[in-house]
């Protein structure tokens, strides 16, 4: 089964994501440059983190208009699993594939450190092997990671079970401690923390199992290498 990793100018977690998909989870992954189209035989798409276009204008704003986003949109409509991590999440939000906006952290600084996530929805293609309320130790690294939605949208998110992850504690001022959301169909997921930085025991000082389950959920959804 094939996973597409999209590379925008300024993406910088693409190689990390590729390494985890291929070397750690033995998935068949392939890079796609943002100007190219996505082939039809792709089973899942990941938008990795980084600073696409140097975060100019707003993080994710320019990449959301890249040619490849049209294909991502089509795949999203078809129900193909799509994950945006960090800048990838910001791009999905800017492209209108996910609700809300990502604003500057309340500290006004870039924040890099480890935090805990709580699983709020384990029905998505990226969380179906996790338990509800399961804790995930995971690193964050962002300057514009404060998730914001207005009250009406928040109500809708809650009603549709679109909140996928919450932070265990208030860390950056996100609305309702939201760290990750999905679209109404649940196949498009965006999250600010970096699961690819937490899935291997060698670099995870706490516990790599929960983050691994994010990738194992994907494998459960799309199957292993043909």
């Amino acid at each position, binding site marked *: 089964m094939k996973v597409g990793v999209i590379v925008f*100018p*300024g993406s*910088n*977690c693409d*190689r*990390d994501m590729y*390494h*985890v998909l291929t070397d750690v989870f033995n998935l068949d992954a392939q890079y796609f*440059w943002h*100007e190219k189209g996505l082939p039809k035989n792709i089973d899942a798409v990941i938008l990795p*983190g*980084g*600073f696409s*276009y*140097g*975060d*100019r204008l707003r993080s994710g704003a320019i990449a959301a208009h890249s040619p490849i986003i049209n294909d991502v949109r089509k795949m999203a409509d078809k129900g193909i699993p799509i994950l945006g991590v960090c800048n990838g999440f910001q791009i999905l939000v800017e492209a209108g594939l996910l609700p809300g906006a990502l604003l500057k952290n309340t500290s006004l*600084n*870039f*924040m*890099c*450190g480890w935090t805990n996530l709580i699983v709020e929805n384990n029905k998505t293609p990226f969380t179906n092997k996790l338990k509800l309320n399961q804790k995930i130790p995971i*690193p964050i*690294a962002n*300057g514009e990671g404060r998730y914001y939605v207005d009250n009406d949208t928040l109500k809708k998110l809650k009603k549709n079970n679109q909140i996928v992850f919450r932070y265990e504690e208030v860390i950056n001022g996100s609305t309702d401690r939201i760290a990750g959301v999905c679209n109404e169909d649940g196949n498009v997921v965006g999250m600010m923390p*970096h699961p*690819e*930085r937490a899935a*291997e025991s*060698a*670099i995870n*000082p*706490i516990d790599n199992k929960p983050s691994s389950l994010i990738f194992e959920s994907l494998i459960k959804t799309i199957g292993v290498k043909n």
Partner: protein
Amino acid sequence: MSLEPQELDDLTSKIGRKPTSTELQIVAAEWSEHCSYKSSKKHLKMLPMKGPLVISEKGYDSGVLDIGDGYVITAHIESHNHPSAVEPYGGAATGVGGVIRDILSAGTRPIAIFDGLRFGDIEKDLQARWLFKNAVTGIADYGNCLGIPTIGGEVEFDECYTNYALVDVAAIGFGKKSSLIKNHAKKGDIVVLLGGSTGRDGIGGSQFASDSLESENRSAVQIPDPFIEKLIIEAILEARNQKLIHAMKDLGGGGLSCAVSETADALSIGIEMDVNKVHTRESDMNPDEIMVSESQERMLIVTNTEKLKKLEEICKKFRISCSVIGHVTFDNMMHVKQGSKTCANLPTDVVANAKLLDRPSKKPAYLENIEKEKKLKPISDYSKMMMKFLAAPNIASKIWVYGQYDHEVGIRTVVKPGKDASVLRLDNGKFLSAKIDGNPKHCYINPREGAIGCFEEACRNVVCTGAKPIGMLDHLQFGNPEDPEIFWTFLESLKGITDFAKYFEIPCVGGKVSLYNETPTGPIKPTPIIGILGLIDKAPLFSHKIDAGDTIVIIGDTKDEMGGSEYFEYIHKFVGGKCPVVNFAESKSHMNTVLDVIGKGLVKAAHDCSKGGLAVAVSELCMTYQIGCNVSLEKIPGPKLDVDRTLFSETHSRYLLVVDKKNLQKLDGLLKKSKVSYKMIGTFGGENIRLNKENKPIIDLRVDKAQKTWFNSLRELVVHG
């Protein structure tokens, strides 16, 4: 700023005619202290640069070490002091950019950034606080955007840097030995300028950095664009993979003047170029400006016309500009034209090799009485004093700084910042440990012993992760070298570093000299910085947890060496006394013994004793691992000392080892055999950090309270200041 009169005479006689205005600009840039090392070069030759792992190639801007299995690491250090003192955000950011391109020039991917930052007293001085905040943001914004983790460094505050800033940046690269660019040029090769456009920023930057900072020359500060740099990195690495690069050099100090003349000189070729072909940011730039602009994010590449097409395709993919500005000749001349008009035509060896100076040196007068101590006010409550000490900007945790740097990207960072040294995993299963250290307070009191101390401290830090030091970077920062007293301190530090490097057989793989670091109130303290690269074959030492009942073992005597200590200077506001002196034989045996017991798996954690002495080192272990301890001060090995000295002396070559009870006997046996001075000085457990004398606590702090103070004080100071 231009050439000295005798330099102008020298140039005129060498070329046999009056130089043109462009030639003057080119030579003034290249002969500046910053580019030519004219004051220091003669002396730098004393450093050992060769070793079994060192790979030397002509024209490299970074050092290369062979780490086996077909892989190499590259390393380099730079500073951006003058620009950062004027415009800290841009100065610090472009400092990162410059050193990253040096790593890239060898054909390796940059995998880590380190930064050493020094400012005035941020507790009192609002400008120092502003400089500090903005330099940190500049480094964060640049490094984070590139996706290269900033994994270590140091931050220090001292009044000698008032109205000034030292911003040192080191970088490490990693790659296959077979992918290294072997700089060469063939007949018919062309010269390409790739990357950002050439503008009017950073004009005369290298001369600006080669003089005392008298005015706020903002136009000499370059403007950072990390996005372009990221595109350049990916484009260059793609070009490397397709073998499109014959030779490469980054544009740094002196801009095109230095890059063209140094490339030509290193490869023994000539280069003919046309300034009209350079892609510029403004349309009306004259040849002089184009030749000395230090606009960032540019690389000079030698390739041939056949490979150019592919190179252009790569540039098109990343939407970066690439211009053919000239071609290789074999007359050893640097020929700069504007269209058909010649602006400069100089022998490359004349341009690239300034006349080296032999500056006079003289022992500074202030050193006569510096070692004398005065009677200090006794401390009535050490616990209270210790809380104040843990909040001192130089002692407090630097989490506010490294928490703003993405130190995880690249997923190599096995041991994260906040420990003795950070550790990266490498593709061949080995690990790289690295640290940079400086200590201007010690170096002020004794430039030689202080510099050796920095070297040993950086070694201790990597040793604490289980790594053997394999290479060293030095960065020598001093005031005006024309002052014989300052030049003496430079020579003393250099000699000390050389002696230590030779004794330990640690080659110098890269370095930098930064002179003319003067503030309105005088020169900075001598500030040599040492970066150490350590290699771990199997697994790094790192532990998640210290358990109650684990033993604290100290290796090394604590001696009466309080001069330049944080305790004297921060608590008593006293500058003086005898600074710590490294005993080479002792140092080596401690280092080998610690590596041996770590290698045998007998140690849970290791931590070096440095700034703030034993009291701070023990507290750091407790605060990091959130556990209390009971330490008996009478057990500390060494000459009999009073409480102040036992707690706060900064004697080198000391290590704290955390040992599980079950390994204690075995460890004891090994340490006995190794003949190092050591003692079990206490155990972990409880909720208090207790340092006792004759069973009475001298220092007694709750770990949680101490930790809160230590973690938050720097942030509180900066955020609410």
